[in-house]
């Protein structure tokens, strides 16, 4: 490892920047979308209708127990045989969103179950019900209670995005892989790539900690 290795990376900064942009947009979009879809799915776990509860349990369980890479293959290679064609980036994004929405839904369900019963009961006693109960009382509480777990999941999202190089999405990992394959400097390339992911995760932790501090005095 010497300085010229870093010089090479600097010279190839265009592909590095493209890679960073791709990873960033994948993470941002799927990070936010999975929270949104997770929130939409969560009430189904508590539906009064048995088959609704059953279906969501099975779906999320299946999703959680399938390897992410396999799921990406299903979307990218499997769906076209049913006439559904996404480009690489969209396939990757759809896979990320669907997969992690299931995780988020599971996270929010456990946060919901953990809300002290008395607080929810006070809601019922004061006439809250259905959507109003969820919007005014359950929703804000479960969101704030879930923050640390959502933060962990976002870090998982950052790391899972690196798999998408397999279907030729040009993310950070793919960018550095292409550089090292030309200049034969894999060690430095992958270390720098690793550092970039680390910075991403540190940023996430920073944001999560700030929000968690806001939430801490509001959850019980």
């Amino acid at each position, binding site marked *: 490892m010497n300085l010229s290795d870093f010089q090479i990376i600097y010279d190839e900064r265009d592909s590095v920047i493209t890679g960073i942009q791709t990873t960033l947009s994948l993470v941002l979009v799927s990070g936010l979308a999975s929270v949104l879809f997770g929130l939409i799915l969560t009430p189904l776990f508590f539906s009064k209708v048995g088959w609704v509860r059953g279906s969501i349990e099975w779906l999320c369980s299946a999703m959680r127990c399938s390897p992410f890479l396999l799921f990406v293959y299903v979307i990218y290679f499997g769906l076209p045989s049913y006439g559904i064609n996404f480009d690489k980036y969209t396939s990757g994004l759809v896979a990320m969103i669907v997969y992690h929405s299931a995780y988020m839904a599971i996270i929010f369900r456990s946060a919901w179950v953990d809300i*002290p019963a*008395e*607080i929810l*009961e*006070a*809601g*019922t*006693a*004061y*006439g*809250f*019900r*259905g959507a*109003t109960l969820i919007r*005014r*009382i359950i929703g*804000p*509480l479960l969101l*704030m209670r879930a923050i640390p777990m959502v933060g962990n999941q976002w870090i998982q999202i950052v790391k899972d995005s690196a798999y998408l190089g397999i279907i030729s999405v040009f993310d950070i990992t793919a960018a550095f892989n292409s550089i090292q394959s030309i200049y034969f400097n894999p060690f430095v390339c992958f270390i720098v790539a690793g550092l970039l992911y680390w910075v991403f995760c540190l940023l996430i932790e920073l944001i999560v900690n700030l929000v968690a501090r806001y939430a801490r*005095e*509001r*959850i*019980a």
Partner: protein
Amino acid sequence: MNASVQHESKTHQAVLRVQGISKSFGDNHVLKDISFDMQKGEVVSLLGPSGCGKSTLLRCINWLEIPDAGHIRLNSERMGYAVNGTKVGDAQLSKMRSKIGMVFQHFALWPHMTVLENVMASPLHVQKRNRKEVEQEARAVLKRVGLEDKINMLPSRLSGGQKQRVGIARALAMKPDILLFDEPTSALDPMLVGEVLEVMRDLAAEGSTMVIVTHEMKFARQVSSRIIFMDSGHIIENRSPEEFFDNPQTDKAKTFLHSVQYK
């Protein structure tokens, strides 16, 4: 003229009628044929040893727990049922519940809302009243319980006594026909009990209709118009405070008063 006749008849009508309420949890027969009436402005203290079913009875009154048998009538409207005898839906039930103010032992404030938001929540989002008016009234009830300077605080920043006064303000803001208190001072440091009892004493003096489950015997004697004493799911005494405390009729009540060290 019609209106005045109606008004006349209402004053003679019980605010709350509990009629033959029974409730079991599995084999545990918790409430056995409980009946009593409450007139407007009456304060009833509900006493009895721990586990005798006091909380369950309060929870049946506002339909948080659905009794196995019996009726609850609030201003002659039957809880949980429409006039034609069919079970009501959630929407109607929610409307009925918002006529009953409940104060919980562990406060059960909504921790993500400020004091003012806690008090405004139900009038605003359940009763769907005008925000300006609701806020004005919320500030007024908070002043009444002595918390006008804590309006924008989160519950986690308050002492237990302050939390419980918010709990009471939250109940008052709905302009309920009746207030239910389930051991409102049991979770408080002894130092903080007084401030809560004082608020409740004012409410009683102002003519609020209240059911109070409490272990504060002196207080119960002072504010109550009637004492209902329960034992293993039955009402075994239902009398004036003087009669109950000075001359309890049943051995159970005597033992109970002895155990709470009421002289």
